[in-house]
């Protein structure tokens, strides 16, 4: 085994660890929804993912998430909240509000139709 081989193997392993760490193990913090007139409201930008992708809301109070899709990739055309039976088409450049009232505490996912883009809704 030559030195180049060893370097390539080591590089491959390193890269692999990096991929695992970056995509699976690390995660970003959550953003709390602002509360206006009892309505917890937040704008979520859809562009290569959801920004913010972790949203913290309070239980039992209505939530309005304004989705603003700023890309044309058809993958993100829809956003789904499977646990709340809510979904919406997101035409590019239009703000689409999704409203519901979380009644249970816990962590719920939201995602695009194909599950490539994901976000978390944490109900406290």
């Amino acid at each position, binding site marked *: 085994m030559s030195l180049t081989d060893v370097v390539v193997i080591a590089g491959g392993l390193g*890269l692999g660890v990096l991929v695992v760490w970056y995509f699976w193990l690390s*995660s970003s913090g959550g953003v709390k929804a602002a509360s206006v007139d009892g309505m917890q409201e937040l704008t979520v930008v859809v562009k290569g993912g959801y920004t913010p992708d972790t949203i913290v809301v309070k239980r039992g109070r209505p939530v309005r998430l*304004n989705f603003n899709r700023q890309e044309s990739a058809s993958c993100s055309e*829809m956003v*789904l909240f499977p646990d709340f*039976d809510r*979904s919406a088409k997101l*035409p590019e450049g239009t703000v689409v509000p999704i409203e519901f009232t979380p009644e249970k505490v816990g962590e719920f996912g939201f995602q695009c*139709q194909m*599950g490539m883009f994901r976000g978390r809704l944490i109900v406290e």
Partner: protein
Amino acid sequence: MGESRELELPIIGIHCDECATRIERALGELPGVAKARVNAVSERAFVTHDPETAPVATLVESIRAAGFDVGLARVHLSVEGLHCASCVTKIEGAVRALPGVQSTEVSLANEEVVVDYRPAQVAPGELRIAVESAGYRVRESGAGAAAAMPHEHHAATAKPVEGEETEDAAARERDREYRRLRSKFLVASVIAVPVTVLSYPGYVPGLKSLSDETIRIIWALTAVAVLPVLLYSGSHFFTGAWFAFRHRSADMNTLIALGVGAAWIYSVVAVAVPQLFPEGTAEPFFDVVGVVVALVVLGQVLELRAKGRSSEAIKKLMGLQAKTARVIRDGTEVDVPVEEVLVDDLVVVRPGEKIPVDGVVAGGHSSVDESMITGEPIPVEKVEGDQVIGATINKTGSFRFRATKVGKDTALAQIVRMVQEAQGSKAPIQRLVDVVAGYFVPAVMLIAIAAFVVWFVAGPDPSITYALVVAVTVLIIACPCALGLATPMSLMVGVGKAAEKGILIRNGEALQQAQGLDAVVLDKTGTITLGKPSLTDVVTWGDFPEADLVRLAASVERSSEHPLAQAIVEGARDRGHELVDPDEFEAVPGHGVTARVEGRSVQLGNLAYMRQLGVALGNLEERASTLADQGKTPMFAVVDGRAAGVIAVADTVKEDSRVAIKRLQEMGLEVIMITGDNRRTAEAIAREVGISRVLAEVLPKDKAHQIHLLQAEGKKVAMVGDGINDAPALAQADVGMAIGTGTDVAIEASDITLITGSLRGVVTAVEVSRATMRNIKQNLFGAFIYNTAGIPVAAGILYPVFGALLSPLIAGAAMAFSSVTVVTNANRLRLFEPRMVATPAVTDVRVEGAAV
């Protein structure tokens, strides 16, 4: 006091004259109001007021304070270029200056102006002109989304998920995206062809003789030539990958960008510094860059085209909405946009016209084609008091109806909303896919890295070339799209198809449950049967004429309120008898009725009554007992003291119940009947429709428990019943199917709502569910097989044995067409037709019934 104006306000909630006085008093007390008059019948207030001292808002406030509400219409205007706070005041000022505008609200975030106004005074068009004269452009779709509704509903519908507007916008966007992708594809393919030819100079006549030096220069030129492919045609892969990366996620874009990017960089290095590579192996593959981008973009173009078709059902539904309505305002017929129809408006419909909103017929009669909503092909007769559904088509006569539901409350709007929600929901079968999707792309990246290392270390020479080609092929062939699209695409088409047939499936879970059912429990009354008694048998005694018997009996019953009496009256009318008013009518409690008709003494009642009268019955008693065995209610008739015959009344079976039940049984489902009726009646009906298992004498509150017992037998049970009385049983069942009543479509307890009353809906629901789930499984199977077979082959697993290696070009083609295949397969569901055809006539059913 300034100039005074006349104002007309629609009022909601006036039920009595006293109410009108109350409002008049409340308005009259206001300073600035000269005169206030309220008409309780037209439900309108006419106010003469000074807009300076008593603005409209104050009037509305005082009406509300008196406990009523003002019917206002609301319009959402979508405005372009709304950026600053000063725009808000400018627009609000312009709109408020109009008469009839009650309030305006400008939302910067949504670029939207919401106006509450009185449709009698100002039209949405004028509101638009006001906004435009303030210097802003109103988007077309905004006006289209205008929705009129009583003000009381506003809080609840502040900003619901828009139906038509969103769908239109989505369609427009899809169109834009389609054109964008198509030109990207054209550019990529125009460049990819010559680049590919030049990449293999050894095989092309004319290029063969060129020196290595010249070829290297040509390659350097192709490196530049493919740049437009990367920077224009494939730009969205790179930007998409970058945005995903920033979100610590990876998708299809990541894979394509990595694969194509790596191929380009490697090729540039190979051309620029060939000495880094073993002698004679420094060959570029710019062809991979061009061809893969061109193919994947082509795949996206085709996929987009196919996707547009899959939402056809919902577009069709929305297209049903009428555009205008003919409404009676101030005693004259006026055509108004459908958005401006208010609850309680009187709407006139002529033959051939579309019924604009939901309502109740107030005068006239006609037959109405409701097939677009209910899936029922035969037109329905409508007389005064009957419900009509918006978007259905009036066939023969003219009639007027009172609007009961407008805007977002109409059956059509509810159906659209429900279908959209269901299309976006998830089937449990997708859970596995979701888990896989979360790990898929990074896992593919790991496999590519591993393949690179293995080929580099253990592969044949030139190992670096092989290693790179293999890694690039792995990245390109993996297709998360096919996997991700498999379930939602089929669900979308399947749910849409069901809606076309008058079946509303609440979500993906309901659909998945419906395909795996073992048993269907049918409520008897109103589900299998019509739910109301009708005259079924007339048995005469001796030579007493049948016509006389029916006419006399029905005339007596005219004075009775009992539902069985009503059945006899209706039955006699259907047979063309003229009825007369009875004299000396008297009800004999627990026995029957007696009266004088046409000067003859007539008694109608049960056996006990006959015994009391002491009438000889002969074999009538036996006949009556036979009828009772069939689940019917027999009544003896006595005319002038002598027995005249027996009339039987029964709740009759719906004409297609038998066929539907037979079909359900053929589909392998156990059909069970549940009813609160006595066993004898229940069994008679069960025999007639071919059901062998009957749960009779079940109290309404025990129905849910009975369902639970069936589930304890290990069965997946569907319950079919009406949404109100059977709600607990519907909720308990694995699938609750509510038989709808036309306009009330959003039945909470049910997983599936059948808009028509026919049991054929149950059959179709199960068939659609089965077809959709089959389609989903095909898609998932295909996508899983494709990825699990494609990735190892791309990684070179076949090489040690067969010496076969996949070209990255083929990988690109496979990837592009795998997702197209999934979408196309889902679209196949559009061709689905329920196998059971409509039963043509009642007689057919009867014949089959007699054969049992």
